[in-house]
């Protein structure tokens, strides 16, 4: 398995670097010939969106931002884990009503609305080992053809 692990406290720097870092990493891993360019570009796109959303919308309270990115390549798959220390938000409170979402053309950003209700958020943010409200994203990106 080939792994890339990066940690940032400066989100602007993270955004500026992420594409190049992934590009460099992808060229150095064993079996990189099996890894097609599209998969790398999807990975770059996902991470760009994630960091951009943090820069635009995240609330870090009084804490300095912390962003950890881990990419692992194994068995023709890239596994991507992103963990940040932003405080998160009440998803159901932010989603527009279903009809409103259907009536609105894309303008500001990509998003998704589901016809099934989102799970009810817990009343208090999760706390783990003294770290308040860790929000995280776990993605599995599979190489195509």
């Amino acid at each position, binding site marked *: 398995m080939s792994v890339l692990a990066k940690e940032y406290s400066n989100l602007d720097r993270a955004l500026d670097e992420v*594409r190049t870092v992934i590009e460099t990493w992808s060229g150095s891993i064993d079996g990189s010939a099996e890894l097609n*360019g*599209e998969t790398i*570009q*999807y990975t*770059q*796109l996902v991470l*760009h*969106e994630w960091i*951009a959303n943090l*820069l*635009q919308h995240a609330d870090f309270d009084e804490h300095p931002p912390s962003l950890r990115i881990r990419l692992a390549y194994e068995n023709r798959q890239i596994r991507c884990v992103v963990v940040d220390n932003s405080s998160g938000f009440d998803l159901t409170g932010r989603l527009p009503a279903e009809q409103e979402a259907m009536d609105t*053309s*894309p*303008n*500001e*950003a*990509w998003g998704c609305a589901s016809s099934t209700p989102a799970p009810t958020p817990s009343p208090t943010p999760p706390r783990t080992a003294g770290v308040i409200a860790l929000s995280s994203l776990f993605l599995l990106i599979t190489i195509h053809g």
Partner: protein
Amino acid sequence: MSFDVDSLSSDTVVINMGEALDFRNADEFKDTFQEYVEDGVQNFILDFSDTEVLDSTGLGSIFSLYREISPDDGKVAFADVSRPVQVVVQLTRTYKVFRQFPSVQAAQEALT
């Protein structure tokens, strides 16, 4: 970063999208096209030959342009689309809304 604009005719311009269109310069892109929309330009050819980054906010700003000009039969065309932008176009199925051309010249011939 500013956007370079070439006027091909009174109703058609080419906007060079540069290296990135994302949340950091989407407002600047909107300001750029707004000026031309107000001057009566109807056809916008977006040259993506050098573009490495197109994010959701950037794509949203292109839809803003589309929504402004399409009621008056205006067109937005993508030209010389780079690989990273092509990935976004395929992923979002934006090709259903914006015609793509291999070059600015091909777009110009089709639109004018």
